[in-house]
């Protein structure tokens, strides 16, 4: 029953988001505001994110026996996610939508002339990566009782590389941005060499 309610609310959210998007698009046509155009697009992406998210609750596609094959699948939380892979499809859509919305907000206001849109999109993407890695690190340490500290090196490298990308972009230090790419490339290379 709750699955149906979730799907219906997702469907209503989908329609409402598209309506808001069309309203904003109409205004962006009147005003030629780049920020509003970005916000309008962000609502379209959000609409599809919420649709995919709500669909995942009525369209479970993975079967339970397959999910139970491996030991790590026996965690109840993992099982729920395993049954609904569409949830994962919605996450990048949500992140893209929020990134675009806040970049649009900045582009529409004070920062249009001081911070170009591309820079903001780059900054937000790196910020999202840093936040995800930080959350992953914290949750792994707190909830999963991960043994050893070697894996921290790998995730830490990725974390540092995205942080440096952002800083490099803000201060327009090309070398720092290149260094961050090298760090990202180094992380899997180190794993492969082990």
């Amino acid at each position, binding site marked *: 029953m709750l699955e149906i309610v979730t799907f219906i609310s997702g469907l209503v959210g989908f329609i409402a988001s598209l309506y808001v998007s069309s309203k904003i698009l109409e205004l962006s046509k009147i005003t030629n505001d780049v920020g509003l155009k970005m916000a309008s697009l962000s609502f379209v992406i959000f609409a599809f994110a919420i649709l995919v998210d709500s669909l995942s609750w009525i369209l479970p596609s993975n079967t339970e026996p397959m999910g139970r094959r491996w030991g790590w699948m026996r965690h109840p939380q993992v099982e729920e996610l395993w049954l609904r892979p569409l949830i994962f499809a919605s996450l990048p859509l949500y992140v893209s939508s929020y990134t675009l919305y806040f970049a649009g907000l900045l582009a529409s*206001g004070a920062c249009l002339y001081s911070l170009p849109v591309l820079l903001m999109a780059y900054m937000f993407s790196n910020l999202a990566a840093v936040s995800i890695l930080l959350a992953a690190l914290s949750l792994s340490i707190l909830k999963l009782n991960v043994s050893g500290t070697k894996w921290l090196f790998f995730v830490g490298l990725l974390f540092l590389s995205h942080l440096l990308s952002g800083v490099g972009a803000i201060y327009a230090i090309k070398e720092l941005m290149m260094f961050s790419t090298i760090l990202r490339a180094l992380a899997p290379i180190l794993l492969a060499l082990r």
Partner: protein
Amino acid sequence: MRTVRRKYRSAAGIIYDILRTLDEKGPLPPTKLATFTNLPYDRLRIFLNSLKEKGYVRECEEGVEITEEGKVALEKLKEAKRLMEFLGFKL
């Protein structure tokens, strides 16, 4: 020493101010419109050219005036003001 932070307006906010001023005060010379909307003259010209292309304002004997299409656009902006502010876009 206290510094006063400049308040910026969005492009949408500036267009809203221009159309609203022309609607409330009637036809105006561009210099007066620049004063009322608190815009430098050269910047106002850029916005006026864009609005003229869209058919929202036109030149007249007194200077610039709002057209019927401009009034419709202004109504749409007024209607969406609350939505925009709710989303963080200042009009």
